[in-house]
């Protein structure tokens, strides 16, 4: 991608604009240029830019140069810079402003297309899956599971069920391209006896509009979903295993002052709760070969949203599933974890060379654990880690939690095993 001259009469003044967005006590003037941010950022060096340089250029008022650097599309806005900076300086805020300032036709087409698809109708699906098709796919898949496994002959996947305890937003990837991956989560809900529902409008769990820097569209996405959830009167909203959609939703509600009559829950913490309560009696007996597993903390869920409590839950669930001695942490991890390079729209941005260079650090982290499997509750992490594994020659597999939970409970269907390696797929 070439550097561009944004088509704006007056380039944005980064410092002035950012000042309004900074949390209390944070200040760009406090930067002592130590470089911890740049040293700890996998995007450093791409397009000759890094977080320290970005901040220093903003301090110097080099607004035009910042407005034009394509580096802003390689920064995944993971906020690791803010985490390790003694001053708490958050470069991702400036990056968001810069993205918003790019002319629409110069922004990465993949991210723009995803946002445009979301805006097309009230499904809010980034893969353009309309609500009528979604409802049909859900119904067909429910039928297949009922017919295929008599233990689940009463399984349901309700849509617009008023008074359900949980409303679930569904990542489009499953209904659009791999409906067989819908089943494991439904089986878990059925097993635990959860009262839940999808919504027919705003059912999707992705939000690429935030990544385009287009605040109006971001707000529109969140508003459609919030209204649909409010209408059902659910106590708790959760996503399928997902990172960024969780962040864009709660952050959007807060940022745009939307009225939401529900709590933001996350699926991983509910897995942990149900296991603790004995409602999801998983064990690691299936892991007879003592396969080693590591876990990827999605930035959007851990560092940017809930923090270490959900990282604890991730590990609690992982250890129960694979066996205490078969779990190996990546280093660093939890709130200090590296972004894999799949976030921020990077996967959709068409910048494969840069994305894989970014992902090399994640790849090294995974290889250092010697794990055969990586567990992650995020679709972008999932795709990126699979891609860099293939690209750099890693032998590991990337799996969802729902796959292992169902495997452990003996309820994983034969067609629900596509992400397992051969030694587990045949169990």
């Amino acid at each position, binding site marked *: 991608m070439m550097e561009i001259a944004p088509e704006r009469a007056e380039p944005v003044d980064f410092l002035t604009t950012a000042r309004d967005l900074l949390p209390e*006590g944070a200040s760009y003037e406090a930067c*002592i240029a*130590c*470089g*911890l941010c*740049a*040293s*700890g950022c996998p995007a*450093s*060096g791409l397009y*000759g830019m*890094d977080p320290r340089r970005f901040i220093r250029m903003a301090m110097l008022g080099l607004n035009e140069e910042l407005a034009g650097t394509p580096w802003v599309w390689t920064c995944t806005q993971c906020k690791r810079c803010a*985490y*390790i*900076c*003694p*001053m*708490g300086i958050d470069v991702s805020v400036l990056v968001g402003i810069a993205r918003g300032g790019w002319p629409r036709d110069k922004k990465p087409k993949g991210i723009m297309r995803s946002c445009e698809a979301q805006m097309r109708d009230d499904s809010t699906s980034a893969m353009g899956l309309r609500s009528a098709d979604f409802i049909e796919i859900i119904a067909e898949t429910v039928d297949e599971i009922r017919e295929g496994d008599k233990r689940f002959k009463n399984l349901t996947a309700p849509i617009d069920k008023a008074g359900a305890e949980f409303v679930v937003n569904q990542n489009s990837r499953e209904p659009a391209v791999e409906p067989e991956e819908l089943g494991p989560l439904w089986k878990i809900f059925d097993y635990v006896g959860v009262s839940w529902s999808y919504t027919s409008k705003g059912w999707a769990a992705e939000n690429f509009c935030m990544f385009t820097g287009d605040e109006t569209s971001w707000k529109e996405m969140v508003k459609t979903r919030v209204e649909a959830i409010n209408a059902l009167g659910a106590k708790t909203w959760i996503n399928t295993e997902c990172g960024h959609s969780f962040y864009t939703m*709660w*952050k959007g*509600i*807060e940022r745009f002052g939307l009225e*939401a009559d*529900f*709590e*933001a829950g996350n699926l991983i913490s509910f897995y942990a709760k149900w296991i603790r309560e004995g409602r999801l009696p998983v064990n690691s007996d299936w892991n007879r070969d003592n396969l080693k597993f590591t876990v990827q903390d999605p930035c959007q869920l851990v*560092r*940017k*949203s*809930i*923090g*270490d*409590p959900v990282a604890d839950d991730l590990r609690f669930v992982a250890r129960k599933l694979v066996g205490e001695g078969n779990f190996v*942490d990546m*280093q*660093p*991890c*939890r*709130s*200090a974890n590296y972004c894999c390079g799949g976030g921020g729209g990077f996967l959709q941005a068409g910048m494969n060379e840069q994305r894989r260079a970014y992902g*090399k*650090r994640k790849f*090294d*982290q995974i*290889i*250092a654990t010697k794990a055969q499997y990586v567990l992650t509750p995020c679709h972008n992490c999932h795709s990126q880690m699979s891609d860099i594994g293939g690209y750099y020659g890693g032998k590991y597999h990337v799996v969802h939690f729902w796959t292992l939970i169902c495997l452990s409970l003996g309820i994983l269907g034969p067609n629900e095993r596509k992400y397992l390696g051969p030694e587990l797929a045949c169990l």
Partner: protein
Amino acid sequence: MKRRQRRIKTKLAVIGAGLSGFSAAIFALKRGIKTTLLGHTGALAYTTGYLDLLGARRGRLLDDPWAGLAALREDEPEHPLARLGNDEIKDAFACFTAALRDMGIGYSMPGALNRMVLLPAGIRKPTLCVPDTMLAGMEAADRRAKTLILDFAGLAGFSAAEFKANFLTTWPAITVQKIQFPGMEHGQVFPEVMARALEVPSLYAELARRISPRLDGARYVGLPAILGMHAPDEVHAAMERLLGLPVFEIPTIPPAVPGIRLRELFERALPETGLELEPQLKVQRADLRPDGITLYLHGPMEDLEVESEAVILASGRFLSGGLKAGHETLSEPLLGLPLYQPGARKDWYRREYLDRRGHRINRAGVKTDTDLRPLGGDGAPVNTRLFAAGSLLAHQDWVRQRCGTGLAIATALRAVKSAQAILS
């Protein structure tokens, strides 16, 4: 949307995620005290990895820090280290280095004398305890041994040529080589990135292959501190095995690996031994009462209340926000503790930066009694459950006196002992 509310009930809350805060947590956990540590990262990542006790007095380097402490007690009786006994200080170092070793980074134990360690500019300085990965450097320098010093193309934080130039007269047998780090042949490279990459065995094997043909009879190999992040002793041992020579690390200028190693070690290992850690959040407000202290923090999605029987304030100085400088006065922003400080701004600094007497502002800080309870305006403790430790304490100049670690961990130990005495 409803914000989540979370409450933590604990025995001891430590405010500050620096050397002092983490060592307080180590000492408290060892005593079986339920401990919660709160605080966003501070200056810990800037350390060299060396643990100084007392390296300088009146502008002169000290061989014997213990004798230095005796002298300090004579002419700076209010200095926080002067109010502690040598046994207690030694205890703090011994316990701290043992804990580091248990968690996975080997350190030398505190000895009777300071050791002269290497700095990246090619000079030596006195310190008390040294990471195992850096020990062989002192030996090489003492023996003036033939030594190969390496640096890396694209690395800004360390120059082998500068190191050699400054040692020219005292250690002439240094040769230098600049090599390419495997897989990072283009652009700027950071020590942190190299260190993490070296956790992968195929990468340190490749690095050793690149070094081997350049040894040319060297008896030691020195390189910037990049030998792994979480298992430096393993990576160091592997490099020594592959090269067949003693290998040592030299700390680099920040952002450097040894400090990041310590921070990530604490964040990783201490929660496994029972520490409740909130590493992202700063304490925003505190409510001091005779029967307990409540701390208030605000996360992205939740409000957190920490109810504690005792609190150790280890929030550091200006960089980490423990102290704040206004136009005319300094303040302690969380509790508004009265500070020992120069009368007016014109008295903060002397005219010459390198004035041997130091600057008055550097001795400003929180005043305490010998139990390390902060004192109020009336000279009495502000609250019987509140203690302070580390660099926010008054009457010290840790940079000039080279006593940063000693100050941090010895006062942390005293604060923990004082806190323990009042816990139910």
